[in-house]
């Protein structure tokens, strides 16, 4: 995906939603993965030059890796603080860049990590395992 391509943003999440629905995962778990994918995708769109997202489904669990070529994050701790954002005025005017993306990812994912160095791009990895209420809801996991 390309940085700045707001008109394309959301396609990866839509694609992931479609593919996961066919894998027998519980609806609520699919929803968590889709939200996290959307936020990772938007971060690439808002901040990076380009990037990619890989989603692997294995044994009822999901692993995601979002990696970009971009400016990187100078202070990860600060970036993770809810409400903090370095998004452009344009992104903010569209309702993005409110500093809620990482918070949404952390809430949706069961494991979460960010690796980045200034001017070296960013890699976000997340893991998703079925939560008790999702197993009860009948996901075939």
């Amino acid at each position, binding site marked *: 995906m390309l940085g700045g391509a*707001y*008109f394309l*943003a*959301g*396609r990866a*999440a*839509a694609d992931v*939603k479609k593919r996961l629905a066919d894998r027998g995962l519980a609806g609520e778990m699919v*929803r968590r993965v*889709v*939200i996290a994918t*959307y*936020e990772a995708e*938007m971060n690439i769109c808002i901040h990076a030059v380009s990037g990619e997202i890989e989603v692997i489904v294995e044994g009822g669990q999901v692993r995601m890796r979002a990696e970009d070529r971009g400016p990187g994050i100078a202070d990860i701790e600060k970036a993770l603080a809810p409400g903090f954002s370095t998004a452009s005025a344009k992104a903010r005017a*569209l*309702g*993005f860049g*409110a500093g*809620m*993306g990482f*918070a*949404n990812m952390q*809430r949706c994912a069961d494991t979460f990590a960010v690796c980045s160095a200034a001017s070296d791009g960013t890699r976000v990895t997340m893991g998703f395992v079925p939560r008790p209420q999702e197993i009860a809801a009948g996901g075939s996991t």
Partner: protein
Amino acid sequence: MKLTDVVSALSLETHAGEGKLERPVTGGIVSDLLSYVMGNARAGNLWVTIQVHPNIVGVADLLDLSAVVVAGGQEPEAATVAKAREHGIALLTTKMSAFTLVGKLHELGVA
């Protein structure tokens, strides 16, 4: 309550998703921050916003929302209407401000 009841009670204008008006509305959410909606909306919710770009349709589709209502007399972009038609998302508008609209939705029992 069905979406069609909300549309007639509040005279909302339908720009797309005419075939989706029989859907039940499970509640509402109002925000212009897309991540807030991503993190807090539930399936079947009706979303009130003044954003008009195509990403609002993408969010509504991902979250399986019942409708997006663009308030305040804002006109959705042509690309937004096209995307809503393509994805079968109910896209509604009103001249009412978001504040007034949400008040009326509450009176109707959408909570």
